[in-house]
């Protein structure tokens, strides 16, 4: 169980009500969740259910209307370089080169140290030879890896990924999942990963948090007890996957 981890992030009774034109919509309803240090957690739910909103409150971009998020016991009040939010590949800065993007958050370091880190992360995400390239010259998968590298370069202890592979084709997406796991195993960051793809969640996560439609509540937390690399045709994988399919109320037949 998750108790094997030290708790990194604790969300307590998070509620979020958006008010617009006099109407109020409840998006998050009393969500409590612990995330372990170094854990890979997936938030899974249908589009528009509010899982991104939850991620944004955890990252400090939104303040919840009820409850609080604590990281290492400290209340989250705003964004912080110790925890980096990775958008879909659209978040890379188009006016900076690959190097410039990766070095973006490293402005406090000395020049030598900065260059060393940039080189390290370019290698980690396999963008050697593209140091001077601009994002518009890169493919979608490369941009996504660049954004992950930019996030890792500032050595955050938590990464928030908001459907990071949603805009990629299915082959690139599979490759990127493998890359992300490789990087996670090398760096052991805490990762909170939002997705609406059940297969993706079961392939990646230590635990999958299944969320209901709006207002989002935690429907179930599924522990994926298969060691990496995961065999996605193993009976245990299929069992867990189908369990989630049922949980969400989908028949797994087309």
């Amino acid at each position, binding site marked *: 169980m998750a108790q094997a981890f030290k708790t990194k992030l604790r969300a307590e009774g998070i509620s979020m009500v958006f008010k617009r034109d006099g109407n109020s919509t409840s998006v998050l309803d009393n969500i409590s969740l612990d995330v372990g240090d170094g854990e890979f957690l997936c938030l899974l739910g249908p589009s528009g259910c509010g899982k991104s909103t939850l991620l944004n409150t955890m990252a400090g971009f939104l303040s919840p209307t009820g409850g609080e998020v604590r990281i290492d016991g400290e209340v989250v009040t705003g964004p912080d370089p110790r925890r980096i939010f990775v958008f879909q590949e659209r978040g890379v800065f188009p006016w900076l080169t690959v190097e410039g993007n990766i070095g*973006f958050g490293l402005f406090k370091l000395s020049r030598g140290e900065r260059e060393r880190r940039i080189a390290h992360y370019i290698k980690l995400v396999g963008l050697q030879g593209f140091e001077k390239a601009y994002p518009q010259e890169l493919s979608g998968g490369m941009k996504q890896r660049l954004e992950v590298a930019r996030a890792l370069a500032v050595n955050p202890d938590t990464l928030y990924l908001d459907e990071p592979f949603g805009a990629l084709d299915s082959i690139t997406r599979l490759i990127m999942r493998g890359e992300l796991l490789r990087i996670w195993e090398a760096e052991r960051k805490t990762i909170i990963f939002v997705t609406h793809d059940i297969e993706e969640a079961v392939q990646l996560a230590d635990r999958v948090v299944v969320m209901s439609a709006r207002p989002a509540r935690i429907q179930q937390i599924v522990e994926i007890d298969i060691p990496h690399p995961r065999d996605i045709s193993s009976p245990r994988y299929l069992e867990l996957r189908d369990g989630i399919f049922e949980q969400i109320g989908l028949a797994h037949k087309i």
Partner: protein
Amino acid sequence: MNSLAQPAKWEKVLWPLLAGAVFLAGWHFSVKYSGSKIFPSPVDVQKGVAELLRKGVLWGYIVDSLRRVGVGFSLAALLGIPAGLILGWYPAAGQVVNPVIQMLRPISPIAWIPLSIVWFGVGDAAAIYLIFLGAFFPIVVASMNGVRNVPSMFRRAGRNFGLKPAQLLAKVVFPAALPQIIMGLRIALGIAWLVVVAAEMIAVDSGLGYLVIDARNSGKRYDLVVAAMLLIGLIGLMLDIAFRRLEKLKSVRWGFRLEA
């Protein structure tokens, strides 16, 4: 999108030359057959250009026009870009000031001529002021909109990496808004070039605009009028080309639609 197949390389030279030749021939013969004594033919214009070059006033006039545009436009950019950035950055400031800008903007800079002569007298300062007015508002509006249109994702990413507001403005908002600012500068430069000619026709006695009006008033030298117009066109074209170069820089290229 075009309906026809890719033209061959030689066509890229042939067609423009052909069109140019047709145009010149049409001009030449229509002057000849209309029997106009006043309107110049291409040959007259070419002689006119030669005459201007020989007399040596031309360089002085070009330099005068360029200086006025240069000073007025630079002042407009120097004040307009920071003003636009601030108005875009602080929505409250934008909300308060924007209506005033929208009211002042459509006043043709040329309508300011009488006031600018009262304030600055007949001379360079009046012309520069008019050019400044013509260029200032497009630059402010482009910079303001540029900042407003910066995707919130970029701002968030900047904040996430721990940037302070001043750093965020310098390292994220400004570069993200730069393509729109450059586009605004280019439009403003075009307007400045339009206004300088008008200002020189009315408010000063040198420059290419003055050359146009002077050639007409002192002896109906329409060959010189057209020669001066051609020069205005050519210099304007060169200014525009220089600006387009700027848009090709890699760090701003992303902001412009790829051209066919």
